[in-house]
């Protein structure tokens, strides 16, 4: 044979072997036409709506709340109107000229109320006005004009109140008295709202739902890029005459497979965000890895105690007096004889929040005793409804009716009076 014949024979053998071999592999592995079914399928499937993935990380619980640079979040409060002696620190009006929050008039008596939703509802639904009236009647505050400034917001928990106070003081706000009514959120919410995502009990509620989309953004962007690259590979393949070659189809299948693996890898990392174990400290906050339930409860009580102490010190350094009240709750055994209607409407055995109270509240009471020993004006209100048989609780979380708020206002005013000017 002539040399060119041998070379042609070798080339032909190679091409036929590769082509027929590739077709055999595709027939065995894929079983259908790569160019007619598989590749166009990939092309049409690459337009995944990214919004769906962001939505999977968000949560309806945070609607109506806005990330705040120093407090974690604040309620938007767009449809709430403060009346009478009430001012809402999270509203624009509180920061406008003439607001009592920045008053320098010695006749004004500025009373901050801090806490979560129970404190917020207390301030707005009867308790705030009643407390203002009680205080105005006390000898120490005679002739003063009480203003109730509401720092409390739904779902807030320490150390948010402490930092909210520090932030307002930084802006030049004035407080004469700061009344904190809290304790429940601090022990009840973590287990369902932050712990499942590996987020610290110190952080505001639903922290993952608030920052998750931002944390996921780089990965979502990377995924978007990889999806576009996979689409480019299939477009260039389908636009080329080589698509009819079995060998080219095998090469494309391998390239597509690598592109798909890269996308799956980044999607795996996105799924990893559902648990924060491997995330950076800034997102996760201080957590007790491998802690028992008891150790976690100790940690939560310590956070509450530390925040109360800092509020006390910060208030004192700014000419204000801080009063810390441990709020009552129906899941605290012996705290209230529940009526039949309260048992039906306001008590659920094993409630996701309430079930943490029997373990958490004794720790808060012990921490409160330590605070009192350190000079903090701590008052335990967990037994304030101990002998009250009328309906006070309105839901199976923790919330109270107006009658209860009026009782709390009287108890808080009495405690403030009992301390005198101390």
């Amino acid at each position: 044979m002539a040399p060119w014949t041998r070379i042609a024979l070798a080339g032909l053998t190679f091409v036929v072997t590769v082509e027929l071999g590739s077709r055999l592999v595709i027939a065995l592995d894929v079983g259908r036409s790569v160019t007619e079914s598989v590749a166009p399928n990939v092309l049409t499937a690459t337009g995944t709506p990214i919004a769906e993935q962001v939505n999977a990380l968000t949560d309806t619980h945070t609607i109506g709340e806005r990330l705040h640079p120093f407090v974690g979040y604040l309620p938007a409060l767009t449809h709430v109107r403060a009346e009478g002696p009430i001012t809402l620190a999270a509203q624009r009006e509180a920061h406008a000229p003439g607001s009592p929050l920045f008053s320098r008039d010695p006749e004004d008596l500025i009373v901050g109320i801090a806490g979560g939703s129970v404190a917020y509802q207390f301030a707005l639904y009867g308790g705030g006005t009643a407390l203002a009236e009680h205080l105005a009647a006390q000898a120490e505050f005679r002739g003063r004009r009480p203003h109730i400034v509401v720092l409390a917001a739904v779902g807030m928990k320490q150390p948010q109140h402490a930092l909210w106070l520090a932030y307002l003081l930084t802006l030049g706000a004035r407080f004469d008295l700061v009344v904190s009514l809290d304790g429940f959120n601090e022990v009840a919410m973590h287990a369902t709202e932050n712990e499942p995502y590996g987020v610290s009990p110190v952080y505001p509620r639903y922290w993952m739902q608030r920052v998750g989309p931002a944390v996921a953004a780089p990965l979502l962007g990377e995924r978007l890029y990889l999806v576009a690259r996979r689409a480019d590979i299939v477009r260039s393949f389908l636009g080329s005459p080589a698509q009819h070659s079995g060998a080219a189809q095998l090469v494309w299948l391998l390239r597509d497979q690598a592109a798909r693996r890269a996308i799956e890898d980044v999607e795996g990392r996105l799924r990893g965000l559902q648990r924060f174990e491997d995330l950076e400290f800034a997102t996760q906050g201080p957590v007790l890895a491998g802690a028992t339930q008891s150790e976690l409860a100790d940690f939560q009580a310590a956070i509450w105690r530390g925040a109360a102490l800092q509020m006390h010190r910060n208030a004192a350094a700014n000419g204000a007096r801080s009063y810390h009240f441990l709020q009552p709750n129906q899941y605290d055994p012996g705290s209230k004889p529940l009526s039949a209607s309260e048992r039906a409407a306001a008590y659920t055995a094993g409630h996701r929040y309430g079930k943490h109270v029997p373990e958490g509240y004794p720790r808060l009471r012990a921490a409160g005793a330590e605070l009192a020993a350190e000079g903090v004006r701590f008052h335990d209100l967990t037994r304030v409804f101990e002998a009250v048989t009328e309906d006070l609780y309105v839901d199976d979380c923790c919330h109270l009716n107006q009658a209860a708020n009026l009782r709390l206002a009287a108890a808080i005013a009495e405690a403030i009076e009992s301390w005198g000017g101390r």
Partner: protein
Amino acid sequence: MIPRETQPAWWPWILVPFLIGAALVLVGAALLEGDAAQGFQYAL
């Protein structure tokens, strides 16, 4: 003219490219996953 028995054999010109081609295809087949033809997974 070269004597017939001293002419290079023609079959290696078929066998060698066949083996190379077959080896390439086998490598490709080995790299290809069983689910290579799957489309896109909408997973998060």
